[in-house]
């Protein structure tokens, strides 16, 4: 059984696969331009001192985005 989660719930160091992205318009475009598309594996590498934004590692680089922006992305944890 697979469970989908919000990136907010992932712990630092946890890996997941992107399942779907619901963001549209400006934000949706920005997210996809950076390579966040379904099927991509991400790893939460850190959170800023106030827990927001979050830093993700994917496809060989690190990306940061705010929690409320990450809320548009659902993921499925690996392992």
């Amino acid at each position, binding site marked *: 059984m697979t469970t989908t989660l919000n990136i907010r719930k992932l712990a630092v160091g946890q890996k997941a696969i992107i399942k779907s992205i619901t963001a549209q318009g400006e934000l949706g475009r920005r997210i996809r331009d950076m*390579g966040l598309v379904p099927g991509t594996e991400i790893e939460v590498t850190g959170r800023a001192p106030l827990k927001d934004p979050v830093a993700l590692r994917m496809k060989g*680089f*690190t990306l940061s985005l705010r929690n409320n*922006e990450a809320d548009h992305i659902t993921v499925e944890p690996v392992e």
Partner: protein
Amino acid sequence: MSKRIRIALAGNPNAGKTTLFNAITGARQHVGNYPGITVEKKEGFASSGGRELHLVDLPGTYSLTAYTQEELVARNYLIDERPEAVIGVLNASALERNMYLAVQVLEMGLPMALALNMMDEAAKQGIRIDAARLSEHLGIPVVETVARNGKGVEGLLTQTAAYAEQRAGSWEPLEISYGPDLDPVISEMVERIETEKFLTDRYPSRWLALKYLENDDEIRVVGRKTDKLAEELEAMAAKVAEHCKKTLSTYPEAIIADYRYGYITSLLRDVIVRDTDRQRIDFSDNMDRLLTHKVFGPLGMLGVLFMIYWFTFTVGDYPLGWVENFFAVVGDMVSNGLPDGLLKSLIVSGIIDGAGGVLSFVPLIMIMFLFIAFLEDSGYMARIAYMLDRVFRIFGLHGCSVMPFIVSGGIAGGCAVPGVMAARTLRSPREKLATLLTAPFMTCGAKVPVFILLISVFFPQNQALAMFCITMLGWVSALIVSRILRSTIIRGPSTPFVMELPPYRLPTLRGVMIHTWERTWQYIKKAGTVIVAISIVIWAMMTFPGLPADRLAHFESQREAIHAELAQAQPGSDLAQKLEKRLPLVDNAEGEAALRGSIAGRIGIALEGISSLAGFDWRTNIALVGGVAAKEVIVSTLGTAYSLGEVDTEATQPLAERLAKSPHWSALTAASLMIFILLYAPCFVTVVAIRQEAGGWKWALFSVVFNTGFAFAFSTLVYQGGKLIGLG
């Protein structure tokens, strides 16, 4: 005679595009802005195998969706200027994402060569890339490069130039399948576009169809102006969007992006080999564990900011002094060489002081930019934004706003000019504007002498505390006003903080130097011309119309009388000394009368009606009017206005005594004045810088009017409030 080949460099930010550009063109480059906007335009020249190459560095983008100004510039350059070739600069260690932009350029159909840059870093991470195979798949040159040490650069140029000649300007759009939902509608659209010849002289037809599906605003606007077919295409796009939403609960734009990445994945399947055995120790990840740690991260950041600050204003003070001295010497020379009169006054007070005022900032600006360039190129700037974004967002700002604030005088003693220019790192237009308009509220170095003067006279018991309070007031005002602006005239959702945290790298000396020099030179050029003109105007305002002849004669006769008495008195006697002391008093009285009668003086007197609400008399008004040109002028103008002749900004004692004794002044007046000086119109150099960064005089003018109004309201409130509760 060979023809000059134009080559555009396209690539993601942090892909090493600028380093490559510098490596190719060396000193033969030219920086400007694209017409009408602040995106930097860099051009340079090189030659390869007897061919003359003209290189254009497009702004770094992740995509060509025309969503940001950078993207629009890059895209329109490619479409309208039709360069003979494009070099796609790719960061080899993040090839998948970097290919996203390259694929979009290939879809447009331009002749393109790929530079697999930073191959050394990729190798360190255990990534091997088969460049020959990628070249074979795409049918274009693919060259491995390391821009930092110039490896592969020569080969890249020869191959690109040869390929450009081979293609001879023909566009061959790459066709990617977008799946069963979109492919039929795309072919249908392409057919319609080609039969109607709809915009086909400018855009490739398939690309145009894709833009309609992607909801591209720019293309839609252009289309509507051109032909009725635009409506039809929009309807087709809307229909398929509706269908996608119903059946797949997604939309065409997302499908297009997914298929593009899918295409890239299949393209790279046998190109990239990841060395899985090798334990990848990522240096940047380890650095981040410490540098963005929840406790050590902010502490380290404060340390770094403080160090930069300290270094800039301590070390920068020396060259600042040299430049100031240089202008003082030039001023003296001209002074001695020219006869007294208007011309001398114009050249010395108007032009030399004006130019000196601008140029004396140059060392500070250079040092500041040196650090900013270093922080940006090293990747740390992105971490600062990352750490502070949460706090700044509350005030409608962006994590990147911190640097402009600090540099402007967030720690007392900065300067708003480099501060405003540092706002260039903000990519988001609304947050950038809010930052530009509020950064001048900080306690810049020119305000400090006035504060010190007033504090020492009126708050002698709590000097440090008063200085601290005024600095904090700058911060609080900036944040609150940002919040207000962002929820009124620059309203709008916050710009997404989807930002790359580039790996930490040691910047190249050459890159940092070029960056620093470019920005400094822009400052000198733009500020220099405008400021000298304005300082001439200010000089004229304080000089004309001058005293009428009878008043001049009156002062002259007073002086003559004293001279006559002096001639009779015994040299060195008490009487002679007394008489000698009376001479400057006459000069001062004349100066005061002249100032009162000058345009500036009349403005000062005219303003007294309003300004008295905040407790300022006409003399203060003149100083404040002068302070709009440059805040440094406030102390010296106050001195002149209080008829003390030349007052050095450093030696404020006589003026201080005068103010302390004056019945017009109280601690309340001083507090009101300090608040006003802290917050009112930015100095002219800053205004020019705001215009440059905000892209128009409208916002520059707004900052003058709004900040002054805000300052006046605040001062009046404090003054009147204070009087009500019996202070002052």
